[in-house]
């Protein structure tokens, strides 16, 4: 709507001080790295303001100015600190020439409402910068893990080789360790056993209950809902404490009195505990899907002679399937990511992947954790995509336009 705001060139008296201010800010870091902060600030301000004046008043060619600035800064950075500095220089050079022209040509107003005052424009961009910083805070920790998992050293930080982008600084050895180390493999296998079974239990029971809850007359519906959602509300440490007492009694009973295999009982305890934790997610997502379910469809099916079971599988199930699957994914990730309860309820032979990571972080710290973390991030991206696609499909099925 505001794309047609007319823009005009700004006077140098506004452009040069702004650029100099940004230059001084960047100069703080360069100056601090080289011994003197005030010198860096003054130097940065003079350098960037001078260049801006040169480009605008003397060169008068934007394209050429871009090339000169980017390559010049990049070269300077490379000569002083190598490849890492070179890349920083290229980026910095691009930013300053872009910033100069953005201000000078008045492009910053192009997408804004024409009647905004200068102060409003300033706050608009200040707000953007703040939001950008918060997004950086949100995403940086996850992005930092990815390259560090390829570290050739056993360090948790970037080595000089990595910063120089030297291939020798990178290796796949932590991934290799993950795929060959018995302990990691066993815990991964345990996670792959426990999470799917727990998910199946919570999805099948949860879907049935959600269908029951969505009927029009359910006595004590609020109370039932509160009980079914409670595993999500009660802090995990309390659930774990309660389950610790309870399941150790149950386990003793199953092993001692009924004579079950110890390993089997161990898995059973963890699976049941995880299934309970996943149930609220299934209930919430499936009931949300059922809200938009057109009940006349089941009546029509019954009218045409289908029994309740057939109606359920042929009519209702396909329509609510997206909700069921995303509930299942939530339940899966809850179990796959859970460590407190398994720490209390399980024994060493049920060690899951998060448990192994937890002990790794607490005791013998090894960079293999970062390789595992990277794999898990990839898995969570895949899950996120699946859930999003399912949500859109569900909205399409229900005749809504996907948002």
């Amino acid at each position, binding site marked *: 709507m505001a794309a047609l705001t007319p823009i005009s060139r700004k006077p140098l008296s506004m452009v040069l001080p702004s650029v100099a201010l940004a230059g001084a800010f960047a100069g703080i870091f360069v100056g601090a790295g080289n011994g003197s902060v005030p010198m860096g600030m003054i130097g940065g301000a003079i350098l960037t303001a001078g260049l801006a004046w040169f480009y605008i008043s003397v060169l008068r060619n934007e394209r050429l100015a871009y090339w000169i600035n980017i390559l010049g800064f990049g070269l300077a950075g490379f000569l002083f600190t190598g490849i890492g500095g070179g890349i920083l220089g290229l980026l910095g050079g691009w930013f300053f020439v872009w910033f100069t022209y953005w201000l000078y040509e008045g492009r910053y107003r192009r997408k804004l409402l024409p009647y905004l005052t200068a102060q409003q424009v300033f706050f608009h961009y200040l707000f953007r910068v703040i939001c950008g910083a918060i997004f950086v805070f949100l995403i940086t920790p*996850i992005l930092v893990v990815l390259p560090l998992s390829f570290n050739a050293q056993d360090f948790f*930080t970037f080595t000089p080789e990595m910063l120089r982008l030297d291939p020798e600084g990178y290796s796949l050895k932590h991934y290799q360790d993950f795929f060959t180390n018995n302990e990691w493999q066993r815990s991964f296998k345990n996670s792959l056993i426990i999470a799917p079974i727990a998910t199946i239990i919570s999805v099948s029971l949860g879907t049935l*209950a959600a269908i029951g809850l969505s009927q029009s007359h359910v006595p004590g519906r609020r109370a039932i809902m509160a*009980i079914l959602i409670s595993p999500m509300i009660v802090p995990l440490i309390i659930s774990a404490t309660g389950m610790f007492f309870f399941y150790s009694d149950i386990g003793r009973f199953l092993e001692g009195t009924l004579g079950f295999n110890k390993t089997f009982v161990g898995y059973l305890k963890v699976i049941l505990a995880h299934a309970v934790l996943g149930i609220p997610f299934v209930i919430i997502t499936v009931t949300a899907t059922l809200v938009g379910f057109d009940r006349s469809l089941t009546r029509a099916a019954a009218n045409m002679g289908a029994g309740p079971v057939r109606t359920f599988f042929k009519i209702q199930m396909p329509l609510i399937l997206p909700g069921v699957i995303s509930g299942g994914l939530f339940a899966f990730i809850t179990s796959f990511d859970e460590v407190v309860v398994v720490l209390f309820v399980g024994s060493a032979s049920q060690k899951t992947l998060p448990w192994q*990571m937890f002990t790794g972080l607490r005791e013998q710290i090894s960079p293999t954790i970062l390789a595992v973390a990277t794999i898990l991030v990839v898995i969570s991206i895949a*899950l996120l995509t699946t859930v999003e696609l399912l949500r859109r499909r569900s909205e399409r099925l229900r005749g809504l336009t996907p948002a």
Partner: protein
Amino acid sequence: MTDASQTAGPMLAADGTPLKQSLARSLRRQKLRALFLIAPLLIFVLVSFIVPIGSMLFRSVENSIVRDTLPLTVDALQSWDEKSGELPDENVYEAFVRDMIVAIENKEHTRLGSRLNYEETGMSSLFRRSGRQIKKLDPETDGPFKEKLIDIHDGWGDVKTWQVIKTHSVPITNGYFLNAVDMRRTPDGPRMQPEDKRILVKLFGRTLFMSLVITGACILLAYPVSYLLATQPTRVSNMLMILVLLPFWTSLLVRTSAWKVMLQQQGVINDTLVWLGLVADDARLIIINNQIGTIIAMTHILLPFMILPMYSVMQTIPPSYTRAAKSMGATNWTTFWRIYFPQSIPGIGAGSILVFILAIGYYITPEIVGGTKGVFISNRIAYHISSSLNWGLAAALGTILLAVVLILYWVYDKIVGIDNVKLG
């Protein structure tokens, strides 16, 4: 319906029963079917979740071990005045020897010793050391026992020992709850613990304080982001939403380990600061294993839980309101403070309670980045479960925490409603 008006009497259904009755039957059948569908899950959750929580609540007051192990002694101690400052009579000692011989045979005396050791240090070794020699006594012939027991261990000649046994002989005790708030049962009623043992109230206070700080930090960071998401066109906000949802979906352990990597002394943040020259190499910031570490990491982990409710509330605020305010001459600040902000308060409320509930019971992150100074009450619970084995105290601490969470949850239900919980 001419038929109905002609024949007086109840309206009939097709099969001839009165319509009212037939409808009631159908309704009843519907209710039964709904309950039948819910029943398996309800029973499952009740048995494997509600009952364990209940058993934890019970364990926080249960204390039958003293009475079960020393039944005769407890009876004999009834007639002893614990405030007199004198040792109990010979009959108490005799009853004690009889009890102990049975207990030692069943190897229960050490368990009792460690139970009483939570109340008075030294009890555990007193029971363990005397056990072997008490076993050699014959309750029928070797009496009187008072002198002999005091010979075996001085502890039996100490009034305090008998006071502890008598005070903790009740089957249902408030002792664990008193311990949980830094008090203890004494013959003179509840008293404060000695200064050097008072840590739990401080820990509760710290847990609440840090959860509040984390909630506040989340509000500050989430508000601008949610506002941006709510005011951008859908295509842009969906793209930005990925940046919020990716951390939300990423494993908790991954995010915690990422923060461990970032915050360490030789970690990414410190290395960057040193490289930039903002921090000297020998003066690296200590931002892990203390409260700062816990606050930074948990703010990051809980931020999506604040952004999502705030965003869904802000989405519903019509932009025309702020435009109307501006057209009538309101300044930017007035427009925000008088028009926009009041409408976004429900989102702040919902997000804050959610984040606070989650923060107050956190265990993993404080355990890994919190060191000793930045841990929560949940870490203490875990310590009592797995290391000190004082399960009663762990259960009492858990019960108090649960009560706090349930009150907050009730508030959340009043303000937002459980049915409005949305995911993703």
